[in-house]
């Protein structure tokens, strides 16, 4: 008796501990995600530890990240385009040090570096100097660069996170890219999935049903990188030929592939919902003279509708979070998506492709974590909505 009690207590505590542990782990991951990302809002859109300085006669005191990029790319060549004097812009960075000064001038341990930089900046009126802050003396005129805000990330349309000296962190094309590819996927997968589910639940015989279910389970078991490989070699050239477009790596290719990947989820959940329609309801419909098809569309589907909706929403969530397959077939260009026949870049592909080399704790690293929080918020709300519809079905 006591032994049984002890065993019961033991099992109970194991269940309790693992539950607590899992909850804590999930909470930890969420807190970590937001903590790593939030550091970015204390920073300016300049490479870490760097500052911009100009000649003391230059009236310009403020530049936006876009303007800095424009200067580097040669879009702005004169300060009068940037609210300044009529004087051409001249960029001065660490890589120009060696061509302007000899090693003797700098000293064996670079001890004269600060002084030389200051002299150079004060001697050239059009200079825009970009240096680690400690090499710029406090007497120099510094340029203010705006702090990064959530709005600037969400609204920005340029994603050049490694641009030097001012990274461009506009995530709008990437977020829209993700939404577009997932929506496309669900538009393809939902009708197909529901039709297959109806067939399985209402029409197919026992043997046929079992063999189709096996195939669908197989579909769910294929790793997404294999889907991606298939997409790259088969689907991409196919899309390119059918639509006669310059490139086959498009949002459409991604959508088709994601539709394939989310089909098993949609089919099995919809089938559950459809088979749970009570036999009495269907019998009543048949007794009133409706044929089988009328019964399916008039009685069974409306009954199962909330279940089908929650299945499709979960399917969207699955598609939105999928990484490898989209990375391989969507082309990954961070442009504002306009049609399904152009390359897009998704949130997941961006994180997967860039996190590996982004220096830990840097602006690029934190920007990727911000993208991660977007992803988390989206899938979390999608799951909440699906849960809401599932609840409705049960009540």
């Amino acid at each position, binding site marked *: 008796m006591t032994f049984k009690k002890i065993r019961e207590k033991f099992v109970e505590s194991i269940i309790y501990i693992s539950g607590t542990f899992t909850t804590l782990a999930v909470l930890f991951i969420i807190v970590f995600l937001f903590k790593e990302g939030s550091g970015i809002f204390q920073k300016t859109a300049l490479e870490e530890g760097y500052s911009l300085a100009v000649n003391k006669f230059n009236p310009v005191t403020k530049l936006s990240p876009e303007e800095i990029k424009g200067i580097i*790319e040669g879009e702005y060549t004169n300060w009068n385009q940037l609210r300044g004097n009529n004087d051409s812009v001249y960029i001065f960075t660490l890589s120009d040090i060696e061509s302007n000064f000899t090693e003797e001038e700098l000293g064996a341990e670079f001890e004269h570096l600060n002084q030389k930089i200051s002299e150079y900046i004060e001697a050239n009126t059009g200079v825009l100097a970009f240096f680690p802050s400690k090499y710029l003396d406090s007497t120099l005129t510094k340029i203010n660069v705006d702090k990064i805000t959530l709005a600037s990330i969400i609204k920005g349309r340029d994603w050049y996170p490694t641009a030097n000296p001012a990274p461009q962190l506009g995530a709008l094309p990437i977020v829209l890219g993700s939404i577009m590819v997932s929506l496309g996927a669900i538009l393809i997968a939902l009708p197909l999935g529901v039709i297959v589910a109806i067939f399985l639940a209402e029409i197919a015989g026992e043997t046929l049903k079992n063999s189709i279910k096996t195939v669908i389970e197989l579909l769910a078991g294929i790793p997404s990188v294999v889907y991606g490989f298939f997409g790259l070699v088969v689907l991409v050239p196919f899309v390119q030929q059918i639509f006669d477009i310059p490139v086959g790596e498009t949002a459409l290719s991604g959508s088709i592939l994601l539709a394939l990947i989310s089909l098993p989820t949609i089919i099995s959940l919809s089938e559950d919902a459809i088979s749970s329609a009570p036999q009495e309801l269907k019998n009543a419909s048949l007794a009133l003279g409706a044929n089988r098809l009328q019964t399916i569309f008039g009685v069974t589907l409306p009954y199962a509708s909330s279940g089908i909706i929650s299945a499709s929403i979960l399917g969207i969530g699955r598609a939105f979070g999928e990484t490898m397959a989209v990375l391989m077939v969507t*082309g990954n260009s961070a442009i504002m998506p306009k049609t399904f026949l152009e390359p897009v870049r998704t949130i997941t592909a961006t994180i997967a492709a860039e996190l590996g080399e982004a220096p830990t704790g840097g602006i690029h690293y934190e920007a990727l974590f911000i993208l991660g929080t977007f992803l988390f918020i989206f899938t979390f709300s999608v799951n909440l909505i699906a849960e809401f519809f599932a609840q409705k079905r049960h009540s």
Partner: protein
Amino acid sequence: MKKQILLYSFALLAFFSAVAQPIKIKGSDTMLPLMQLEIEAYMKRNPVQLNVTGGGSGVGITSLLEGSVDIAMSSRELKMAEKLKFEEKGLKLSVLAIANDALSVIVNPQNPIKQLTREQMEDIFTGKITNWKDVGGDDMKIVVYTRESSSGTYEFMKDHVMSKKEFTKTAISSSATAAIVYATSQTKGAIGYVGIAYVEPIVKAISVSYDGGQKYIAPTFNNAFNKTYPITRPLFILYPLEKEKTVKPFIDFLFTVYGQKLVTHKGYIPLK
């Protein structure tokens, strides 16, 4: 008896840990396949343990700075900012080029274009020119393929071909070199760039001119070897002078006839 065995095994362990401290090499992914081949060949002849990992040139240099590796591989020269950091730490470095690498600009074999100037390439890769007819080809949209921004090859292209400008937003980016070769072979209007070792007959490598179109040089092994081909870069190894004693025998091996033969074998350009 048992005590003795224990004692012996401890002695053995101490002996091995004293002798077999492996030499750690880290850095450029471009150089990784070459270095793997070199250390394999070297370890066959010498009772020394070496291990090599990739991660990118910047990662290798940072690890060297932190002292967690003995040798760093880099496919670019040290940046001024990095030099200053080594200076701050009081580490004196030895920087040696062990081989060269050439970048080929590739197009689809059906594309009649055979040559481009550097200025034309800059305009194509930055998105200023979007149709092949503007550089003397067919009326066909240009599709730019590029590596992801983490790649050293991407940085090299930006610095040496594109005057440090950014790639066009419409460029299709791929995280693997082989994927660029494959896509270029499939897409008629494609243009991409890969290391000379990756060029295959399914794509066409074009000649480039760095003097405004007077002389076009083809990216062949010989042109890269005698340095007439302009888009070449040295591949460096770096080590702190204080570790010279441990790493010198291996470094010397890299410069032997056999070590340089392995360079050619992997598709890179040997020093001489």
